[in-house]
């Protein structure tokens, strides 16, 4: 009987109920879209930021004090100015290991490229491109510059870490200056001491690709780490490691501390400006979303309250009649609160669907990618809609329970 009263009451007041449902739906859709995007946004934002490069730079801690005389550098005051390649896997053993998207080691050497009038100095950089590394638990983890520098545009092809020992990926500026293109050979000369020509080593590299990233990489020549280490006699050593960490629940500083604990002789520096900018942007976006959602939900609540108040006023005789037949206040309240709950549930469900479309639009326009629906948003939105609807109905329901049957039945 109760359900019959509810369903018939709804069908009798289709128009007003539709208004209340739309009111709830509008608030729910905005909240749903913002919740969906919010759940996705941290991930998306981090990927967006990661596109601009690594957010951690690992250097040997003793590599910070260089000495020199008359412009000639003699290196660091201590022996340890490299990171051991064999320690790199430890970056993937920190507590937040799952959030380490990738890392790439770098070994730098100034070399001379070309011959005759085209001869010029360039930085030869040994690195991992997409190297399959083995972690200490035996699992494979592919990592390298291709993983952490996803925005690099490479004409030609990438270098195979295992097989392309004489292949090079050259920066766009280097290619321009030397007139090199994919497939060309180039001569690279390396001196252990810049002023000692007798100790010069010369070798040939084949240009396998030209990289354009808009940064320092455009002025460098990349070869495999093994090649660079073999050429410079620094087997097993690297200068720096760039780490790309994806972190939403933890500050990036924690990564740095943990890496320093795992590899005690290194210093892990956060790219502070980038990290703090990320957090400021995220906090602002989340704050804005919360504000918009609150405003939308308050508007919904006002809409529902208006419809429910009208409904109680229009149904005064009905309420009085029910009371005269023995309906207690709690049963009258139960009737109206159930109607409010139905409104909330329908509005919430529709709002979720509309919100999903909105979140797709936001995802496409802001992040240029699809926002993935989050199942957790469904119960959250239904719950929020029910809460808003019930809360907005509390005053009208209170008014309904105050109605005295004798007053309304005699037509006052």
């Amino acid at each position, binding site marked *: *009987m109760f359900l019959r009263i509810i369903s018939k009451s709804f069908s*009798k007041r289709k128009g007003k109920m539709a208004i209340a449902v739309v009111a709830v739906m509008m608030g729910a859709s905005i909240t749903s879209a913002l919740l969906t995007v919010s759940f996705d946004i941290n991930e998306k934002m981090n990927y967006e930021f990661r596109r601009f490069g690594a957010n951690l730079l690992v250097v040997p801690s003793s590599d910070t004090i260089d000495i020199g005389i008359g412009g000639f550098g003699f290196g660091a005051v201590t022996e340890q100015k490299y990171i051991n390649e064999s320690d790199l896997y430890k970056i993937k053993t920190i507590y937040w290991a799952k959030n380490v998207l990738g890392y790439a080691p770098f070994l730098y050497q100034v070399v001379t490229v070309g011959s005759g009038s085209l001869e010029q100095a360039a930085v030869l950089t040994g690195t991992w491109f997409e190297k399959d590394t083995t972690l200490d638990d035996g699992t494979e983890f592919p990592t390298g510059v291709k993983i952490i520098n996803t925005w690099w545009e490479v004409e030609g092809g990438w270098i195979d870490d295992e097989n392309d020992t004489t292949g090079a990926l050259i920066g766009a500026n280097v290619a321009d200056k030397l007139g090199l293109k994919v497939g060309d050979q180039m001569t690279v000369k390396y001196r252990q001491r810049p002023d000692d020509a007798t100790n010069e080593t010369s070798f040939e590299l084949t240009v396998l690709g030209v990289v354009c990233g808009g940064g320092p990489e455009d002025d460098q020549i990349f070869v495999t780490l093994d090649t660079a280490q073999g050429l410079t006699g620094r087997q097993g050593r690297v200068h720096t490691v760039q780490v790309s960490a994806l972190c939403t629940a933890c500050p990036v500083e924690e990564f740095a501390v943990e890496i320093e604990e795992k590899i005690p002789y290194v210093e892990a520096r956060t790219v502070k400006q980038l990290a703090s900018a990320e957090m400021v942007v995220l906090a602002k976006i989340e704050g804005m979303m919360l504000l918009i959602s609150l405003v939308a939900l308050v508007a919904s609540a006002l809409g529902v309250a208006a419809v429910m108040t009208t409904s109680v006023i229009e149904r005064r*005789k009905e309420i009085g009649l*029910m009371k005269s037949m023995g*309906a207690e*206040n709690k049963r009258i309240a139960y009737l109206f609160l159930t109607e409010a709950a139905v409104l909330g549930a329908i509005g919430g469900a529709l709002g979720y669907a509309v919100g999903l479309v909105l979140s797709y639009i936001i995802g496409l326009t802001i992040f240029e990618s699809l926002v993935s629906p989050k199942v957790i948003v469904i119960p959250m939105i239904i719950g929020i809609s029910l809460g808003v609807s019930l809360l907005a109905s509390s005053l009208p329901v209170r008014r309904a329970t105050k109605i005295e049957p004798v007053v309304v039945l005699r037509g006052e």
Partner: protein
Amino acid sequence: MGPSGSGKTTLLNMMGCLDVPTEGSLFIDGTEITNLSQAELTRFRRDNIGLVFQQYHMIPYLTALENVMLAQYYHSVVDEGGAIEALERVGLGHRMDQMPSQLSGGEQQRVCVARALVNDQRLLLADEPTGNLDKKNGQVVLDLLRELRDGNHTIILVTHNPEIATMGDVLVELLDGKIVRCGSPGSSGRPR
């Protein structure tokens, strides 16, 4: 019975636990209802009293049958068979699926009578039940009430129509809020 403003409806509302007296006591079947809380009054009314109003109040979006079932719902449990039986008793077995707007005034009042008697409450209070009906429909409703009285129900009927007043076993006449006469309709009664 009594003229307009004599206090008939006020007295009936108090007996129906819809209103409370400002002073004095009211006993119904041995229970003093003036001391009851609002919730207790509602329960007492639900268990003991059936109401028929001059304006035949019905829930507009429920059928005749559902309106009768609603009284069962708020009383105890819904029994569709019992509700149909009540409607058949008032001669509306064939109109049970009609909406209130599809029923004549007389039919609506008969639905109200069916609703008042469906829970088998012993006391039926009727406030000018024929006041809005034509003579023919009014007679049908009065016949129904007489039938119920004969079937062991106590019916208290308010009217200002002397002809209807004489149909009862006891006639109480009010004037300006006071009982001026109480006795069998045929006798001169006991003037107060």
